[in-house]
Protein backbone atom coordinates (compact mmCIF):
# COMPACT_ATOMS: atom_id res chain seq x y z
CA UNK A 1 0.00 0.00 0.00
CA UNK A 2 2.92 2.34 0.69
CA UNK A 3 4.12 2.20 -2.89
CA UNK A 4 0.59 2.98 -3.87
CA UNK A 5 0.51 6.11 -1.73
CA UNK A 6 3.82 7.35 -3.03
CA UNK A 7 2.69 6.71 -6.59
CA UNK A 8 -0.43 8.72 -5.90
CA UNK A 9 1.58 11.58 -4.45
CA UNK A 10 3.90 11.66 -7.44
CA UNK A 11 0.99 11.71 -9.84
CA UNK A 12 -0.54 14.62 -7.97
CA UNK A 13 2.68 16.62 -7.85
CA UNK A 14 3.58 16.14 -11.49
CA UNK A 15 1.07 18.56 -13.03
CA UNK A 16 1.86 21.07 -10.28
CA UNK A 17 5.27 21.73 -11.82
CA UNK A 18 4.67 24.82 -13.95
CA UNK A 19 6.51 25.89 -17.04
CA UNK A 20 8.62 29.00 -16.96
CA UNK A 21 6.78 31.49 -19.06
CA UNK A 22 9.12 34.36 -19.78
CA UNK A 23 7.89 37.84 -20.49
CA UNK A 24 9.38 39.87 -23.29
CA UNK A 25 11.30 42.04 -20.83
CA UNK A 26 12.66 39.13 -18.81
CA UNK A 27 13.80 37.39 -21.95
CA UNK A 28 15.51 40.51 -23.28
CA UNK A 29 17.55 40.65 -20.10
CA UNK A 30 18.55 37.02 -20.21
CA UNK A 31 19.40 37.02 -23.91
CA UNK A 32 21.45 40.22 -23.88
CA UNK A 33 24.47 38.13 -24.66
CA UNK A 34 22.99 37.09 -28.01
CA UNK A 35 22.49 40.61 -29.29
CA UNK A 36 24.32 40.90 -32.59
CA UNK A 37 25.57 37.33 -32.58
CA UNK A 38 25.78 36.07 -36.15
CA UNK A 39 24.35 39.36 -37.33
CA UNK A 40 21.05 38.79 -35.56
CA UNK A 41 19.99 41.68 -33.34
CA UNK A 42 18.25 41.10 -30.03
CA UNK A 43 14.79 42.28 -31.22
CA UNK A 44 14.96 39.75 -34.03
CA UNK A 45 15.82 36.98 -31.55
CA UNK A 46 12.92 37.99 -29.33
CA UNK A 47 10.52 38.03 -32.26
CA UNK A 48 11.77 34.68 -33.54
CA UNK A 49 11.48 33.06 -30.13
CA UNK A 50 7.97 34.42 -29.68
CA UNK A 51 6.81 32.64 -32.81
CA UNK A 52 8.84 29.55 -32.08
CA UNK A 53 7.80 28.82 -28.53
CA UNK A 54 5.83 31.77 -27.19
CA UNK A 55 8.53 32.31 -24.53
CA UNK A 56 7.56 29.01 -22.90
CA UNK A 57 10.56 26.97 -21.78
CA UNK A 58 8.58 23.73 -21.63
CA UNK A 59 7.52 23.70 -25.26
CA UNK A 60 7.90 20.24 -26.76
CA UNK A 61 6.73 19.61 -30.29
CA UNK A 62 6.89 16.51 -32.45
CA UNK A 63 8.10 17.54 -35.83
CA UNK A 64 8.69 15.27 -38.79
CA UNK A 65 9.89 12.26 -36.86
CA UNK A 66 11.92 14.32 -34.43
CA UNK A 67 11.19 16.31 -31.33
CA UNK A 68 11.96 19.97 -30.67
CA UNK A 69 12.71 21.16 -27.14
CA UNK A 70 12.43 24.36 -25.21
CA UNK A 71 12.51 28.06 -25.93
CA UNK A 72 14.61 27.65 -29.07
CA UNK A 73 12.90 24.41 -30.13
CA UNK A 74 16.17 22.59 -30.50
CA UNK A 75 15.80 19.32 -32.36
CA UNK A 76 16.87 15.87 -31.20
CA UNK A 77 17.77 14.97 -34.76
CA UNK A 78 21.23 16.52 -34.63
CA UNK A 79 21.67 18.85 -31.73
CA UNK A 80 20.83 17.02 -28.53
CA UNK A 81 20.21 13.51 -27.31
CA UNK A 82 17.04 11.98 -25.92
CA UNK A 83 15.46 8.54 -25.50
CA UNK A 84 13.77 8.77 -28.84
CA UNK A 85 16.91 9.30 -30.90
CA UNK A 86 19.91 7.54 -29.37
CA UNK A 87 21.85 7.85 -32.63
CA UNK A 88 21.65 11.60 -32.68
CA UNK A 89 24.83 13.40 -33.67
CA UNK A 90 24.29 15.40 -30.50
CA UNK A 91 26.40 18.30 -31.69
CA UNK A 92 25.66 20.30 -28.56
CA UNK A 93 26.63 17.30 -26.45
CA UNK A 94 23.71 17.60 -24.10
CA UNK A 95 20.56 15.80 -23.05
CA UNK A 96 17.50 17.35 -24.71
CA UNK A 97 15.50 17.72 -21.55
CA UNK A 98 18.07 20.21 -20.27
CA UNK A 99 16.41 22.64 -22.66
CA UNK A 100 13.16 22.47 -20.73
CA UNK A 101 14.37 24.09 -17.53
CA UNK A 102 14.50 27.75 -16.58
CA UNK A 103 18.24 28.05 -17.08
CA UNK A 104 18.81 29.32 -20.59
CA UNK A 105 22.62 29.23 -20.55
CA UNK A 106 22.78 25.81 -22.20
CA UNK A 107 19.99 26.72 -24.63
CA UNK A 108 21.86 29.83 -25.72
CA UNK A 109 25.16 28.02 -26.23
CA UNK A 110 23.47 25.47 -28.44
CA UNK A 111 21.45 28.09 -30.29
CA UNK A 112 24.66 29.89 -31.16
CA UNK A 113 26.09 26.68 -32.56
CA UNK A 114 22.95 26.19 -34.63
CA UNK A 115 23.19 29.74 -35.91
CA UNK A 116 26.80 29.16 -36.93
CA UNK A 117 26.04 25.97 -38.81
CA UNK A 118 22.55 26.53 -40.22
CA UNK A 119 21.88 30.22 -39.90
CA UNK A 120 18.68 31.90 -38.80
CA UNK A 121 16.72 29.75 -41.23
CA UNK A 122 16.76 26.93 -38.71
CA UNK A 123 13.94 28.83 -37.14
Amino acid at each position, binding site marked *: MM*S*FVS*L*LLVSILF*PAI*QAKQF*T*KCELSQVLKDMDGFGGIALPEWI*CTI*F*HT*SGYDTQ*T*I*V*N*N*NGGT*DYGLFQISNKFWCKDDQNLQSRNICDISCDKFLDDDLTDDMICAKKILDKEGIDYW
Partner: protein
Amino acid sequence: MRFREPLLGGSAAMPGASLQRACRLLVAVCALHLGATLVYYLAGRDLSRLPQLVGVPTPLQGGSNGAAAIEQPSGELRPRGAPPLPPLDASSELRSGRDSSPGEDSGPRPGSASNLTSAPVPATTAPPLPACPEESPLLVGPMVIEFNMPVDLKLVEKQNPEVKVGGRYTPKNCISPHKVAIIIPFRNRQEHLKYWLYYLHPILQRQQLDYGIYVINQQSKLKEELLSVICFLLSTYLLFCALHLLERERERERERERSAGLTPAVTAAAAATTAATLAGETMFNRAKLLNIGFQEALKDYDYNCFVFSDVDLIPMNDHNAYRCFSQPRHISVAMDKFGFSLPYVQYFGGVSALSKEQFLTINGFPNNYWGWGGEDDDIYNRLVFKGMSVSRPNAMVGKCRMIRHSRDKKNEPNPQRFDRIAHTKETMLSDGLNTLTYKVLDKERNPLYTKITVDIGTPS
Protein backbone atom coordinates in the same frame (compact mmCIF):
# COMPACT_ATOMS: atom_id res chain seq x y z
CA MET B 1 -23.77 -9.67 -3.90
CA ARG B 2 -22.24 -13.02 -4.66
CA PHE B 3 -22.22 -15.15 -7.70
CA ARG B 4 -22.60 -18.84 -7.32
CA GLU B 5 -20.26 -19.83 -10.10
CA PRO B 6 -16.95 -18.21 -10.90
CA LEU B 7 -17.62 -16.38 -14.10
CA LEU B 8 -14.32 -17.09 -15.77
CA GLY B 9 -14.20 -20.84 -15.31
CA GLY B 10 -11.97 -22.74 -12.98
CA SER B 11 -11.33 -21.33 -9.58
CA ALA B 12 -8.91 -18.84 -8.15
CA ALA B 13 -5.70 -20.12 -6.72
CA MET B 14 -2.65 -18.51 -5.21
CA PRO B 15 0.52 -19.91 -6.68
CA GLY B 16 2.74 -17.81 -4.46
CA ALA B 17 2.51 -15.04 -1.90
CA SER B 18 4.50 -12.49 -3.90
CA LEU B 19 2.38 -13.07 -6.96
CA GLN B 20 -0.63 -12.65 -4.75
CA ARG B 21 0.61 -9.30 -3.58
CA ALA B 22 1.49 -8.25 -7.10
CA CYS B 23 -1.94 -9.19 -8.35
CA ARG B 24 -3.59 -7.26 -5.55
CA LEU B 25 -1.54 -4.18 -6.30
CA LEU B 26 -2.34 -4.40 -9.99
CA VAL B 27 -6.04 -4.72 -9.31
CA ALA B 28 -5.92 -1.75 -6.96
CA VAL B 29 -4.14 0.40 -9.54
CA CYS B 30 -6.67 -0.64 -12.17
CA ALA B 31 -9.50 0.28 -9.85
CA LEU B 32 -8.01 3.69 -9.25
CA HIS B 33 -7.44 4.20 -12.95
CA LEU B 34 -10.99 3.24 -13.72
CA GLY B 35 -12.27 5.56 -11.02
CA ALA B 36 -10.26 8.45 -12.40
CA THR B 37 -11.40 7.65 -15.94
CA LEU B 38 -15.00 7.53 -14.79
CA VAL B 39 -14.74 10.88 -13.04
CA TYR B 40 -13.01 12.48 -16.02
CA TYR B 41 -15.49 10.93 -18.40
CA LEU B 42 -18.53 12.13 -16.52
CA ALA B 43 -17.12 15.57 -15.90
CA GLY B 44 -15.98 16.10 -19.44
CA ARG B 45 -18.65 14.42 -21.44
CA ASP B 46 -22.08 15.71 -21.98
CA LEU B 47 -24.49 13.32 -20.27
CA SER B 48 -27.48 14.59 -22.21
CA ARG B 49 -25.99 12.97 -25.30
CA LEU B 50 -26.06 9.48 -23.83
CA PRO B 51 -29.52 8.56 -25.17
CA GLN B 52 -28.31 9.49 -28.61
CA LEU B 53 -25.28 7.23 -28.28
CA VAL B 54 -27.54 4.33 -27.38
CA GLY B 55 -29.73 5.04 -30.38
CA VAL B 56 -32.76 6.56 -28.72
CA PRO B 57 -33.95 9.54 -30.76
CA THR B 58 -33.78 12.64 -28.62
CA PRO B 59 -36.12 15.56 -29.00
CA LEU B 60 -34.41 18.92 -29.37
CA GLN B 61 -33.03 19.65 -25.92
CA GLY B 62 -35.27 21.92 -23.91
CA GLY B 63 -33.16 24.84 -22.86
CA SER B 64 -33.36 24.55 -19.08
CA ASN B 65 -33.24 20.74 -19.05
CA GLY B 66 -30.05 20.61 -21.05
CA ALA B 67 -28.50 23.33 -18.97
CA ALA B 68 -29.58 21.72 -15.71
CA ALA B 69 -27.92 18.44 -16.56
CA ILE B 70 -24.67 20.20 -17.34
CA GLU B 71 -24.59 22.86 -14.67
CA GLN B 72 -25.51 20.67 -11.70
CA PRO B 73 -21.98 20.22 -10.30
CA SER B 74 -21.08 23.91 -10.44
CA GLY B 75 -20.81 26.07 -7.36
CA GLU B 76 -22.98 28.97 -6.37
CA LEU B 77 -22.25 32.60 -7.09
CA ARG B 78 -23.12 34.44 -3.95
CA PRO B 79 -23.94 38.10 -4.59
CA ARG B 80 -22.04 39.79 -1.85
CA GLY B 81 -22.66 43.29 -3.02
CA ALA B 82 -18.89 43.71 -2.72
CA PRO B 83 -16.55 45.29 -5.30
CA PRO B 84 -15.75 42.08 -7.23
CA LEU B 85 -19.11 42.29 -8.94
CA PRO B 86 -19.27 45.62 -10.77
CA PRO B 87 -20.63 44.04 -13.94
CA LEU B 88 -23.52 42.80 -11.84
CA ASP B 89 -24.18 46.34 -10.65
CA ALA B 90 -23.92 47.55 -14.21
CA SER B 91 -26.54 45.12 -15.42
CA SER B 92 -28.95 46.01 -12.63
CA GLU B 93 -28.23 49.60 -13.51
CA LEU B 94 -29.19 48.73 -17.04
CA ARG B 95 -32.52 47.42 -15.93
CA SER B 96 -33.31 50.34 -13.69
CA GLY B 97 -32.04 52.62 -16.44
CA ARG B 98 -34.50 51.08 -18.81
CA ASP B 99 -37.35 51.59 -16.42
CA SER B 100 -36.66 55.23 -15.76
CA SER B 101 -35.26 56.44 -19.09
CA PRO B 102 -37.49 59.04 -20.58
CA GLY B 103 -39.09 58.77 -23.93
CA GLU B 104 -38.78 55.28 -25.29
CA ASP B 105 -39.44 53.04 -22.35
CA SER B 106 -41.83 54.73 -19.99
CA GLY B 107 -43.88 55.92 -22.91
CA PRO B 108 -45.37 52.83 -24.47
CA ARG B 109 -45.71 50.69 -21.38
CA PRO B 110 -48.01 52.54 -19.03
CA GLY B 111 -49.22 54.44 -22.08
CA SER B 112 -50.56 51.39 -23.85
CA ALA B 113 -52.81 50.58 -20.95
CA SER B 114 -54.31 54.03 -21.01
CA ASN B 115 -54.55 53.87 -24.80
CA LEU B 116 -56.76 50.86 -24.58
CA THR B 117 -59.14 52.54 -22.18
CA SER B 118 -59.17 55.97 -23.75
CA ALA B 119 -59.35 55.11 -27.43
CA PRO B 120 -60.40 51.85 -29.10
CA VAL B 121 -57.29 51.76 -31.31
CA PRO B 122 -55.77 48.27 -31.76
CA ALA B 123 -52.69 48.33 -29.51
CA THR B 124 -50.77 46.00 -31.86
CA THR B 125 -49.82 48.83 -34.22
CA ALA B 126 -46.89 50.10 -32.16
CA PRO B 127 -44.89 52.97 -33.64
CA PRO B 128 -41.79 51.75 -35.51
CA LEU B 129 -38.70 51.66 -33.31
CA PRO B 130 -35.97 54.19 -33.97
CA ALA B 131 -32.52 53.07 -35.07
CA CYS B 132 -30.10 52.50 -32.24
CA PRO B 133 -27.59 55.32 -31.82
CA GLU B 134 -24.10 54.98 -33.27
CA GLU B 135 -22.64 54.73 -29.79
CA SER B 136 -24.74 53.16 -27.11
CA PRO B 137 -25.61 55.43 -24.16
CA LEU B 138 -25.54 52.43 -21.84
CA LEU B 139 -21.80 51.79 -21.88
CA VAL B 140 -19.88 52.02 -18.63
CA GLY B 141 -16.27 51.99 -19.84
CA PRO B 142 -13.51 50.09 -17.99
CA MET B 143 -14.60 47.10 -15.91
CA VAL B 144 -12.99 44.88 -13.32
CA ILE B 145 -12.60 41.34 -14.63
CA GLU B 146 -11.72 38.56 -12.21
CA PHE B 147 -11.81 34.79 -12.34
CA ASN B 148 -11.57 33.86 -8.70
CA MET B 149 -15.26 33.25 -7.99
CA PRO B 150 -17.33 30.27 -9.20
CA VAL B 151 -20.06 30.97 -11.72
CA ASP B 152 -23.54 29.48 -11.64
CA LEU B 153 -25.17 29.67 -15.06
CA LYS B 154 -28.63 29.51 -13.57
CA LEU B 155 -27.89 32.75 -11.79
CA VAL B 156 -26.46 34.29 -14.95
CA GLU B 157 -29.70 33.33 -16.67
CA LYS B 158 -31.67 35.19 -14.01
CA GLN B 159 -29.37 38.19 -14.27
CA ASN B 160 -30.01 38.41 -18.00
CA PRO B 161 -33.74 37.87 -18.36
CA GLU B 162 -33.91 39.54 -21.76
CA VAL B 163 -31.69 36.91 -23.35
CA LYS B 164 -33.80 34.35 -25.16
CA VAL B 165 -33.17 30.65 -25.46
CA GLY B 166 -30.15 29.84 -27.60
CA GLY B 167 -28.39 32.97 -26.37
CA ARG B 168 -30.38 35.35 -28.59
CA TYR B 169 -31.01 38.98 -27.77
CA THR B 170 -32.58 41.85 -29.66
CA PRO B 171 -32.67 45.37 -28.22
CA LYS B 172 -36.17 46.24 -27.19
CA ASN B 173 -36.10 49.99 -27.67
CA CYS B 174 -34.30 50.43 -30.95
CA ILE B 175 -33.43 48.63 -34.15
CA SER B 176 -29.80 47.63 -34.33
CA PRO B 177 -28.07 47.49 -37.70
CA HIS B 178 -25.64 44.98 -36.22
CA LYS B 179 -26.96 41.45 -36.49
CA VAL B 180 -24.05 39.67 -34.88
CA ALA B 181 -23.41 35.97 -34.54
CA ILE B 182 -20.70 35.33 -31.98
CA ILE B 183 -18.87 32.11 -32.78
CA ILE B 184 -16.81 30.39 -30.10
CA PRO B 185 -14.62 27.38 -30.96
CA PHE B 186 -14.81 24.94 -28.08
CA ARG B 187 -13.58 21.70 -26.63
CA ASN B 188 -13.64 20.77 -22.98
CA ARG B 189 -13.59 24.30 -21.59
CA GLN B 190 -16.88 24.46 -19.76
CA GLU B 191 -15.45 26.47 -16.87
CA HIS B 192 -14.11 29.14 -19.22
CA LEU B 193 -17.40 29.29 -21.06
CA LYS B 194 -19.19 30.04 -17.82
CA TYR B 195 -16.99 33.09 -17.22
CA TRP B 196 -17.38 34.18 -20.80
CA LEU B 197 -21.17 34.09 -20.59
CA TYR B 198 -21.18 35.76 -17.19
CA TYR B 199 -19.17 38.73 -18.41
CA LEU B 200 -20.18 39.04 -22.05
CA HIS B 201 -23.95 38.87 -21.97
CA PRO B 202 -24.32 42.13 -20.01
CA ILE B 203 -21.67 43.80 -22.20
CA LEU B 204 -23.29 42.74 -25.47
CA GLN B 205 -26.67 43.93 -24.31
CA ARG B 206 -25.26 47.29 -23.28
CA GLN B 207 -23.77 47.60 -26.75
CA GLN B 208 -27.32 47.27 -28.11
CA LEU B 209 -26.45 44.49 -30.51
CA ASP B 210 -28.89 42.08 -32.13
CA TYR B 211 -26.82 39.01 -31.32
CA GLY B 212 -26.73 35.24 -30.89
CA ILE B 213 -24.11 33.05 -29.21
CA TYR B 214 -22.87 29.93 -30.98
CA VAL B 215 -20.50 27.52 -29.26
CA ILE B 216 -19.02 25.07 -31.76
CA ASN B 217 -17.84 21.96 -29.96
CA GLN B 218 -15.30 19.65 -31.60
CA GLN B 219 -16.16 16.06 -30.86
CA SER B 220 -14.44 12.85 -31.77
CA LYS B 221 -16.19 10.47 -34.11
CA LEU B 222 -19.30 8.86 -32.70
CA LYS B 223 -17.90 5.43 -33.38
CA GLU B 224 -14.80 6.18 -31.40
CA GLU B 225 -16.90 7.45 -28.54
CA LEU B 226 -19.02 4.34 -28.61
CA LEU B 227 -15.88 2.25 -28.67
CA SER B 228 -14.50 3.99 -25.62
CA VAL B 229 -17.80 3.45 -23.80
CA ILE B 230 -17.70 -0.27 -24.66
CA CYS B 231 -14.08 -0.59 -23.58
CA PHE B 232 -14.93 1.15 -20.37
CA LEU B 233 -17.80 -1.21 -19.62
CA LEU B 234 -15.76 -4.23 -20.58
CA SER B 235 -12.89 -3.24 -18.36
CA THR B 236 -15.25 -2.58 -15.48
CA TYR B 237 -16.72 -6.03 -15.95
CA LEU B 238 -13.33 -7.70 -16.11
CA LEU B 239 -12.13 -5.80 -13.09
CA PHE B 240 -15.18 -6.84 -11.17
CA CYS B 241 -14.51 -10.46 -12.08
CA ALA B 242 -10.92 -10.17 -10.98
CA LEU B 243 -11.94 -8.65 -7.67
CA HIS B 244 -14.53 -11.31 -7.17
CA LEU B 245 -11.98 -14.01 -7.73
CA LEU B 246 -9.63 -12.43 -5.24
CA GLU B 247 -12.39 -12.27 -2.71
CA ARG B 248 -13.25 -15.87 -3.21
CA GLU B 249 -9.64 -16.79 -2.82
CA ARG B 250 -9.37 -14.97 0.45
CA GLU B 251 -12.27 -16.87 1.88
CA ARG B 252 -10.87 -20.23 1.07
CA GLU B 253 -7.62 -21.05 2.79
CA ARG B 254 -6.66 -24.20 1.03
CA GLU B 255 -4.89 -24.08 -2.30
CA ARG B 256 -6.53 -25.09 -5.51
CA GLU B 257 -5.37 -25.58 -9.04
CA ARG B 258 -4.33 -22.43 -10.68
CA SER B 259 -7.17 -20.88 -12.62
CA ALA B 260 -6.66 -19.52 -16.05
CA GLY B 261 -8.77 -16.62 -15.08
CA LEU B 262 -7.15 -14.26 -12.63
CA THR B 263 -4.01 -12.76 -14.11
CA PRO B 264 -5.25 -12.57 -17.70
CA ALA B 265 -8.46 -11.01 -16.43
CA VAL B 266 -6.58 -8.28 -14.65
CA THR B 267 -4.32 -7.76 -17.64
CA ALA B 268 -7.30 -7.55 -19.94
CA ALA B 269 -8.91 -5.05 -17.62
CA ALA B 270 -5.81 -2.88 -17.66
CA ALA B 271 -5.54 -3.12 -21.43
CA ALA B 272 -9.17 -2.23 -21.91
CA THR B 273 -8.95 0.83 -19.70
CA THR B 274 -5.90 2.02 -21.55
CA ALA B 275 -7.73 1.58 -24.81
CA ALA B 276 -10.71 3.46 -23.43
CA THR B 277 -8.69 6.45 -22.42
CA LEU B 278 -6.72 6.52 -25.62
CA ALA B 279 -9.76 6.22 -27.84
CA GLY B 280 -9.83 8.92 -30.46
CA GLU B 281 -9.34 12.58 -29.89
CA THR B 282 -7.96 14.47 -32.81
CA MET B 283 -6.04 17.72 -32.81
CA PHE B 284 -8.04 20.87 -32.25
CA ASN B 285 -8.91 22.79 -35.41
CA ARG B 286 -10.01 26.28 -34.46
CA ALA B 287 -10.45 27.79 -37.90
CA LYS B 288 -12.58 24.94 -39.21
CA LEU B 289 -14.88 25.28 -36.23
CA LEU B 290 -15.24 28.97 -37.01
CA ASN B 291 -16.17 28.17 -40.60
CA ILE B 292 -18.81 25.81 -39.32
CA GLY B 293 -20.11 28.46 -36.93
CA PHE B 294 -20.53 30.86 -39.84
CA GLN B 295 -22.56 28.36 -41.84
CA GLU B 296 -24.68 27.10 -38.98
CA ALA B 297 -25.50 30.54 -37.58
CA LEU B 298 -26.80 31.65 -40.95
CA LYS B 299 -29.35 28.83 -40.81
CA ASP B 300 -30.92 30.55 -37.80
CA TYR B 301 -31.10 34.18 -38.86
CA ASP B 302 -29.66 36.48 -41.49
CA TYR B 303 -26.73 37.68 -39.47
CA ASN B 304 -24.64 40.26 -41.27
CA CYS B 305 -21.69 40.25 -38.91
CA PHE B 306 -19.62 37.50 -37.29
CA VAL B 307 -17.47 37.87 -34.20
CA PHE B 308 -15.01 35.02 -33.70
CA SER B 309 -13.95 34.80 -30.09
CA ASP B 310 -11.77 32.41 -28.12
CA VAL B 311 -13.62 31.15 -25.07
CA ASP B 312 -11.05 32.46 -22.61
CA LEU B 313 -10.88 36.13 -23.64
CA ILE B 314 -12.90 38.80 -21.84
CA PRO B 315 -12.87 42.48 -22.83
CA MET B 316 -12.11 44.95 -20.05
CA ASN B 317 -13.85 47.94 -21.60
CA ASP B 318 -17.31 47.81 -23.11
CA HIS B 319 -16.45 50.60 -25.58
CA ASN B 320 -14.67 47.83 -27.46
CA ALA B 321 -17.50 47.09 -29.88
CA TYR B 322 -18.20 43.44 -30.65
CA ARG B 323 -19.51 44.18 -34.11
CA CYS B 324 -18.31 44.75 -37.64
CA PHE B 325 -16.69 47.70 -39.31
CA SER B 326 -15.94 48.71 -42.87
CA GLN B 327 -12.69 46.74 -42.63
CA PRO B 328 -12.08 43.44 -40.80
CA ARG B 329 -11.90 44.23 -37.13
CA HIS B 330 -9.38 42.95 -34.62
CA ILE B 331 -10.93 43.23 -31.17
CA SER B 332 -8.46 41.62 -28.72
CA VAL B 333 -5.64 44.07 -29.34
CA ALA B 334 -4.26 44.49 -25.83
CA MET B 335 -4.31 41.18 -24.00
CA ASP B 336 -2.93 40.94 -20.47
CA LYS B 337 -1.03 37.87 -21.61
CA PHE B 338 0.97 40.03 -24.04
CA GLY B 339 1.50 42.90 -21.64
CA PHE B 340 -1.55 44.80 -22.90
CA SER B 341 -0.06 45.37 -26.31
CA LEU B 342 -0.01 43.70 -29.70
CA PRO B 343 2.50 40.88 -29.74
CA TYR B 344 3.18 41.76 -33.38
CA VAL B 345 1.63 44.11 -35.90
CA GLN B 346 0.08 41.40 -38.05
CA TYR B 347 -1.54 39.67 -35.08
CA PHE B 348 -5.17 38.79 -35.77
CA GLY B 349 -5.86 36.14 -33.16
CA GLY B 350 -8.04 36.03 -30.07
CA VAL B 351 -11.21 37.96 -30.94
CA SER B 352 -11.98 39.36 -34.38
CA ALA B 353 -15.01 40.45 -36.37
CA LEU B 354 -15.73 40.05 -40.07
CA SER B 355 -18.84 41.09 -41.91
CA LYS B 356 -20.54 38.50 -44.05
CA GLU B 357 -19.13 40.07 -47.21
CA GLN B 358 -15.60 40.26 -45.83
CA PHE B 359 -15.78 36.63 -44.78
CA LEU B 360 -17.04 35.46 -48.15
CA THR B 361 -14.42 37.50 -49.98
CA ILE B 362 -11.60 35.55 -48.39
CA ASN B 363 -13.34 32.19 -48.89
CA GLY B 364 -13.73 31.91 -45.15
CA PHE B 365 -11.01 30.40 -43.01
CA PRO B 366 -8.56 27.56 -43.71
CA ASN B 367 -9.65 24.05 -42.78
CA ASN B 368 -6.20 22.48 -42.61
CA TYR B 369 -4.62 23.97 -39.54
CA TRP B 370 -4.64 21.21 -36.93
CA GLY B 371 -3.12 22.00 -33.58
CA TRP B 372 -2.18 25.31 -32.14
CA GLY B 373 -1.07 28.32 -34.08
CA GLY B 374 -0.89 29.74 -37.55
CA GLU B 375 -4.53 29.84 -38.58
CA ASP B 376 -4.96 33.43 -37.42
CA ASP B 377 -1.85 34.41 -39.41
CA ASP B 378 -3.29 32.64 -42.43
CA ILE B 379 -6.49 34.63 -42.03
CA TYR B 380 -4.50 37.85 -41.82
CA ASN B 381 -2.73 36.89 -45.03
CA ARG B 382 -6.05 36.24 -46.75
CA LEU B 383 -7.32 39.68 -45.81
CA VAL B 384 -4.20 41.37 -47.07
CA PHE B 385 -4.21 39.46 -50.34
CA LYS B 386 -7.77 40.59 -50.95
CA GLY B 387 -6.83 44.21 -50.44
CA MET B 388 -8.32 44.63 -46.99
CA SER B 389 -6.71 46.06 -43.88
CA VAL B 390 -7.25 45.47 -40.19
CA SER B 391 -9.22 47.95 -38.11
CA ARG B 392 -8.51 48.14 -34.38
CA PRO B 393 -9.62 50.02 -31.28
CA ASN B 394 -6.93 51.86 -29.34
CA ALA B 395 -4.91 50.03 -26.71
CA MET B 396 -6.85 51.49 -23.79
CA VAL B 397 -10.24 50.43 -25.06
CA GLY B 398 -8.88 47.18 -26.41
CA LYS B 399 -7.65 45.72 -23.13
CA CYS B 400 -8.62 42.08 -22.60
CA ARG B 401 -8.12 39.47 -19.95
CA MET B 402 -7.28 35.89 -20.73
CA ILE B 403 -8.24 33.14 -18.31
CA ARG B 404 -4.98 31.51 -17.34
CA HIS B 405 -4.75 27.83 -18.19
CA SER B 406 -2.17 25.17 -18.91
CA ARG B 407 -1.65 23.99 -22.45
CA ASP B 408 -4.51 21.86 -23.75
CA LYS B 409 -4.06 18.25 -24.62
CA LYS B 410 -4.30 17.56 -28.36
CA ASN B 411 -3.65 21.20 -29.11
CA GLU B 412 0.12 21.18 -29.30
CA PRO B 413 1.85 23.74 -31.50
CA ASN B 414 1.43 22.78 -35.12
CA PRO B 415 4.92 22.41 -36.59
CA GLN B 416 3.57 22.82 -40.12
CA ARG B 417 2.19 26.26 -39.43
CA PHE B 418 5.17 28.22 -40.70
CA ASP B 419 5.22 26.45 -44.05
CA ARG B 420 1.49 26.76 -44.43
CA ILE B 421 1.43 30.48 -43.69
CA ALA B 422 4.02 30.98 -46.42
CA HIS B 423 1.59 29.57 -48.98
CA THR B 424 -1.70 31.21 -48.08
CA LYS B 425 -1.97 32.98 -51.41
CA GLU B 426 -2.07 29.69 -53.28
CA THR B 427 -4.12 27.68 -50.82
CA MET B 428 -6.84 30.18 -49.95
CA LEU B 429 -8.80 29.41 -53.10
CA SER B 430 -8.84 25.68 -52.51
CA ASP B 431 -9.05 25.61 -48.73
CA GLY B 432 -11.92 27.39 -47.08
CA LEU B 433 -15.66 27.76 -47.10
CA ASN B 434 -15.90 26.16 -50.52
CA THR B 435 -14.25 22.94 -49.30
CA LEU B 436 -15.84 22.74 -45.89
CA THR B 437 -17.19 19.33 -44.88
CA TYR B 438 -18.44 18.33 -41.48
CA LYS B 439 -21.22 16.53 -39.67
CA VAL B 440 -23.44 18.07 -37.03
CA LEU B 441 -23.76 15.59 -34.18
CA ASP B 442 -25.91 17.66 -31.86
CA LYS B 443 -27.50 21.11 -31.59
CA GLU B 444 -28.41 22.23 -28.07
CA ARG B 445 -30.44 25.35 -27.37
CA ASN B 446 -29.33 26.35 -23.89
CA PRO B 447 -30.75 29.46 -22.21
CA LEU B 448 -27.55 31.45 -22.72
CA TYR B 449 -26.01 29.91 -25.84
CA THR B 450 -26.51 27.49 -28.69
CA LYS B 451 -24.07 24.60 -28.61
CA ILE B 452 -23.41 22.78 -31.85
CA THR B 453 -21.35 19.61 -31.53
CA VAL B 454 -19.64 18.62 -34.77
CA ASP B 455 -17.46 15.92 -36.19
CA ILE B 456 -14.82 17.65 -38.31
CA GLY B 457 -12.89 14.59 -39.36
CA THR B 458 -9.14 14.12 -39.09
CA PRO B 459 -6.09 15.68 -40.65
CA SER B 460 -5.78 14.39 -44.18
